[in-house]
């Protein structure tokens, strides 16, 4: 696929029906991907995706588009590796150019402790199918010549892990490709349709009350980001989720090619180059929970300062745009997927700052769960009852920066 084979995205808008087999709340990456895999793999097409605003307008349109599988725990490495593999074939499958580009990720270590941690990461990754190697400073310089290995004299680079299959893709295009793929197989997508309440019959969720009237379904799935706590409350659930804002920004055009994605856990930032040549920077979540989309100068100042210690060329660039998304953070930095204990109500949440890379695998496994009523082994460790069962999946490699 490339830009010369492009056709307009064809989406058909249907009138809402009274009943569906499956209703998916949230028309972001995970919701659309679940609909897509339901339709394409399981032939379940009587599906509605409900979106409060417009599809891919939440965190699916605000993330920093990194695709990787270099996580810290076996279950996560396995799951995200499936996603990395699915992303590679998504272009051919949907016949849409999603601008998928394999770049490789360098994950810096600035201390002996970090070297040990990164070595461990490489070994766990290798053992569970992700291609990650520990590289020396000399090799880092070959992969990314722009790096100042002395780290401004304060953060010397002592090594890094290099994740070969690290990639980026255009987030909007991923959403549209999945939406179109689901739509042409008969899935209804309803934009500007907010869910006001869940309709319950006894203990079972049987439908949703929306701004365009009630709709009934056998299965209702929540793929809501950020505002998920309010929705779960309608089903009588309490979630281990706290909503934090996450900010990111891009600079103006950098003339040279900056190939890999560079991240540093100690310096708390990651940087990559977009297809337009802009440098895309992101850092940690805001410490206080909030649903506000307000961005601030505080982050730009701190993050730029840290990024420049490692990549001095950034100081010559100017910041063009900044934006914020609200992330549903789980306490162990792992997602929450699967059955909820409420009949007829499934959930996929806790995607925090690592949701984009999981879009195909998350959707594929949730679709399998809906189609077969059996939780696939791949996502069984991430069920919501892991908190009550003392099986939390604390993952230090989950988010790049905290």
């Amino acid at each position, binding site marked *: 696929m490339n830009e010369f084979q492009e056709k307009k995205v064809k989406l058909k808008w249907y009138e809402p029906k009274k009943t569906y087999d499956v209703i998916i709340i949230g028309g972001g990456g995970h919701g659309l991907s679940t609909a897509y895999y339901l339709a394409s793999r399981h032939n379940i097409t009587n599906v509605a995706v409900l979106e409060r605003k417009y599809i891919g307008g939440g965190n699916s349109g605000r993330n920093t588009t990194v695709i990787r599988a270099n996580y810290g725990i076996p279950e996560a490495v396995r799951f995200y590796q499936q996603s990395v593999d699915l992303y590679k074939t998504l272009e051919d499958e949907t016949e849409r150019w999603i601008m998928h580009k394999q770049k490789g990720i360098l994950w810096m270590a600035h201390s002996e402790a970090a070297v040990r941690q990164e070595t461990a990461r490489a070994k766990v990754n290798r053992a569970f199918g992700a291609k990650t190697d520990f590289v020396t400073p000399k090799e880092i310089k070959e992969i990314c010549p722009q790096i100042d290995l002395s780290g401004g004299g304060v953060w010397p680079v002592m090594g890094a892990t290099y994740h070969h299959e690290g990639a980026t893709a255009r987030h909007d295009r991923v959403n549209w490709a999945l939406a179109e793929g689901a739509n042409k197989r008969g899935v209804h997508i309803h934009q500007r349709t907010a869910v006001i309440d869940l309709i319950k019959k006894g203990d079972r969720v049987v439908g949703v009350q929306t701004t365009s009237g009630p709709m009934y379904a056998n299965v209702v799935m929540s793929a809501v980001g950020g505002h998920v*706590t309010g929705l779960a409350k309608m089903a009588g659930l*309490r979630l*281990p989720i*706290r909503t934090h804002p996450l900010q990111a920004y891009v600079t103006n055009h950098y003339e040279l090619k900056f190939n890999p994605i560079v991240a540093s856990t100690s310096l708390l930032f990651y940087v990559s180059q977009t297809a337009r040549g802009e440098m895309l920077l992101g850092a940690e979540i805001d410490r206080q*929970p909030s*649903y506000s989309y*307000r961005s*601030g100068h*505080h982050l730009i100042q701190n993050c730029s300062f840290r990024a420049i210690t490692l990549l001095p060329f950034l100081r010559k660039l100017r910041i063009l745009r900044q934006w914020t998304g609200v992330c549903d953070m789980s*306490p162990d930095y792992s997602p929450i997927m699967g059955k909820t204990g409420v009949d007829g109500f499934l959930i996929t949440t806790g995607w925090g700052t690592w949701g984009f890379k999981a879009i195909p695998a998350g959707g594929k496994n949730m679709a399998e769960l809906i189609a077969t009523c059996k939780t696939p082994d791949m996502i069984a460790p991430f069920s919501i009852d892991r908190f009550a069962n003392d099986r939390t999946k604390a993952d230090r490699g989950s988010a790049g920066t905290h």
Partner: protein
Amino acid sequence: MSLQITCPHCGRRPIEEYVYGEVPMVPEEITDPDEWDIDRAFMMHNTEGVQREAWFHLYGCRRWVYLHRDTATNQIEKIE
């Protein structure tokens, strides 16, 4: 985030001087001791609206300040 919090002891100070702390509360309807523990350890109110929260004035008077903050807009309604 509004960029300043008025500390009752120190006056208006930038937000970076404070550390956020939550006031965990288990809903009254949870009476089973095991469920209470799980809720206390993991579950969040995650209120979208005004909530009471604690901020520790780390780089100031090192005392706790209680705020009523609207999490949807970041407006601080009341300071205790």
